[in-house]
């Protein structure tokens, strides 16, 4: 490269070139070969050159090793779950985007791995490939809460709107985990049968408010267990506890499944009662053999159960109107129940209930006055529990947590009242108290030291 403006001191020519062949840059005259000026080794400013290392040596910035490893881990997860290439590509893209963000660039390597799992999770959701967070946390062997927190943060940063995962979608994948196909006849079930039965149970549970708001895995476990029992309700199966069943199927039991089982059995009893050929009471103990029939005729049974419930409420209303002593909330009961009617089953909508549909609108006012009425009655339960009056209600309504009694409200506080001195003094220690306190502290600290 020719350097203009320079002349060789030896021969006066201006053909000076940069000679970078050697370690030291030199300006050399091409005509006579003399070195015009030598390189900058000695001339570098003290403390290193002005250009920093990272900006001068690298031609292109090398990609972060951790990012590369993270992408590899992500790809490994994709292989394990056997997702398609679209999901893999999208999750990789999300991971790279999120990785660079300030909230994730400096976190621990473990959290970065969790981040990879979350990116995969959100891509699966977007592409209709349902997996639960529990699956991801299992795969990553990470704390479920950490996965949850990371997921929420990532979704907020990347501004993704992912649809929720329905229990019915993940049911099949879950039930395939249960390895009970290779047992003797009385215990074995094929995965397909089990899935189908469990799916039907889950749908029924969803209609009776057992599923909404709850974690999916305990529900699925309960559905699989009850489904397995009902597919062949022999003594062996009926007597096997959930614990034993999980051991049999080589699946880790979760405690919440026990309550789900109880709730589902209760729901099945309510429906089983309506079976026309049943003699005697249907209890949670003897409902399992009927599950097959219940599931086959579930819509009809739902309708019958609703109607029977309405009739009992009507009867109660009649007796209560004859006897004014009893609870006056009966009219609102019917209102509430009727309002409940369209909720429980989509099939119910097809049923013509025009006369029932209108009253709720104008009787709603009654519902609000009901609490006052029952208060006046002096009933033991001051807030009427609408959950007890309908056929199906979310369990948290039917069995409400006992709340601390509400404190007597301060009424008509203006905020500018006079504050009495005596009240403030009650919050201050007397000098004697202070002395005692200091002495005690000193004594305790001395004791601690010695």
């Amino acid at each position, binding site marked *: 490269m020719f350097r203009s403006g320079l002349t060789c001191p030896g021969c006066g020519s201006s053909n000076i070139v940069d000679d970078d062949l050697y370690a030291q840059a030199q300006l050399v005259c091409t005509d006579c070969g003399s070195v015009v000026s030598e390189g900058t080794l000695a001339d570098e400013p003290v403390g290193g050159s002005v250009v920093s290392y990272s900006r001068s040596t690298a031609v292109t910035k090398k990609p972060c090793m951790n990012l590369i490893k993270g992408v590899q881990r992500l790809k490994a997860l994709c292989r394990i779950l056997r997702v398609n290439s679209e999901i893999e590509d999208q999750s990789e893209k999300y991971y790279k985007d999120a990785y660079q963000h300030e909230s994730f660039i400096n976190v621990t390597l473990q959290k970065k791995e969790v981040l990879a799992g979350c990116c995969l999770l959100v891509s699966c959701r977007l592409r209709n490939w349902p997996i*639960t*967070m*529990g699956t991801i946390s299992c795969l990553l062997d990470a704390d479920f809460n950490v996965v*949850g927190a990371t*997921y*929420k943060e990532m979704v907020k940063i990347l501004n993704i*709107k992912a*649809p*929720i995962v*329905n229990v019915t979608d993940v049911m099949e994948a879950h039930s395939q985990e249960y390895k009970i196909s290779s047992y003797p006849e009385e215990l074995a079930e094929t995965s397909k049968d089990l899935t189908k039965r469990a799916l039907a149970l889950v749908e029924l549970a969803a209609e009776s*408010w057992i599923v*909404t*708001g*709850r*974690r*999916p895995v305990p529900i699925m476990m309960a559905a699989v267990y009850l489904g397995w029992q009902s597919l062949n309700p022999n003594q062996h199966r009926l007597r096997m506890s959930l614990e034993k069943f999980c051991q049999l199927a080589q699946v880790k039991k979760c405690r919440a499944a026990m309550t789900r089982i109880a709730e589902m059995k209760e729901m099945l009893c309510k429906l089983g009662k309506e079976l026309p050929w049943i003699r005697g009471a249907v209890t949670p103990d003897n409902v399992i053999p009927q599950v097959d029939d219940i599931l086959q005729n579930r819509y009809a049974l739902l309708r019958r159960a609703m109607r029977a419930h309405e009739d009992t409420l009507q009867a109660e209303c009649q007796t209560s109107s004859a006897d004014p002593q009893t609870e006056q909330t009966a009219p609102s009961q019917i209102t*509430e129940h009727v*309002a*409940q009617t*369209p*909720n429980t089953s989509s099939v119910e*909508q097809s049923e013509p209930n025009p006369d029932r*549909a209108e009253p709720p609108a104008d009787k*709603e*006012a009654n*519902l*609000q006055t009901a609490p006052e009425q029952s208060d006046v009655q002096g009933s033991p339960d001051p807030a009427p529990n*609408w*959950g007890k009056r309908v056929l199906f*209600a*979310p369990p*948290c*309504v039917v069995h409400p947590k006992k709340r601390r009694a509400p*404190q007597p*409200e*301060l009424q008509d*506080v*203006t*905020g*500018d*009242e006079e*504050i009495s001195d005596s*009240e*403030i*003094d*009650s*919050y*201050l*220690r007397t000098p004697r*108290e*202070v002395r005692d*306190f*200091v002495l005690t502290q000193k004594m305790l600290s001395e004791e601690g030291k010695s």
Partner: protein
Amino acid sequence: MQLSSFTWNLLEILQILDQVDQVRCGVMDESALERYFDDSIANDSAFILGEELGLQSSAPPLDGPASSVQNSSFLSTKSERSGELGDELDLSFLPDDLSTQEEPGQDDTGADSQTSILDVSQDSGVGLNFTSQDSTAEPQQEASISGLRTGASPFCPMTPMTPMTPMTPVTERSGIIPQLQNIVSTVNLGCPLDLKFIALQARNAEYNPKRFAAVIMRIREPRTTALIFSSGKMVCTGAKSEEQSRLAARKYARVVQKLGFPARFLDFKIQNMVASCDVCFPIRLEGLVLTHQQFSSYEPELFPGLIYRMVKPRIVLLIFVSGKVVLTGAKERAEIYEAFENIYPILKGFRKQ
């Protein structure tokens, strides 16, 4: 040219009113009046609509003279107004031929009796507001229009009360009032504080500098907790109303004062209000998150409730399957009430499904 047709139609309106007066005085034949109305409405409806739109878009001060109209001074004021209107407004959207009068009456108007015409006139103010593009009824406008005539209205369509834009019924409130559960407020006591001294001298204080750099003080009435920082700033939580929060903050300030610090009460501000209520019916959260995806976040694996981030007002609602709703993020009580009134119809919509 357009202005002249405007005034020409004014004269027509006046004629109609005269005739209405005559009918009311028993002078004119009822059926003749009906026929007259039929004709004028058929022709004037387009213009009337335009006039109403013009009136709505005109500045409110113009309504001033009109609202006082009740009688014969009507013409002068109306033409004044119309003159002003004409100067400001572009009436080009009006149809060109407003002069046709000979169209036969419409079917629906023939059957109406005069009483129904007069009845409609009582509502005419409201009805006319419906026909305008602005759906919120402006009382000024209403007053001006009902002031325009005391008799029947030839302006409104004959079918009684057929609004063109549906008005949100004011009466359909939920009837449920969210109860405030917690108020968080801050105040500046205006002087640096010695936290160790406060913790020593006050009975109701706890101070653990290794855990948290503030004194935690509690009072019994109103039942609240305060975090008092060495800079003199204080956070007061746990009150059930704005006034209670203020009273509590003042009590804390008084305690600090009594301990010998020159505490003041500066910049008291409510930072957050939390309220809860119960709609008393179960809610399908899965359905709600499907239809309101841009506002809702529902992760049953993480939290049983649906988190609904309302944009206006900017409130976060936690909606549970039991029907209980928690509202938080408000700086004022009205925001909570507004947010609940916004969410209640949405939730009710899910109930009937």
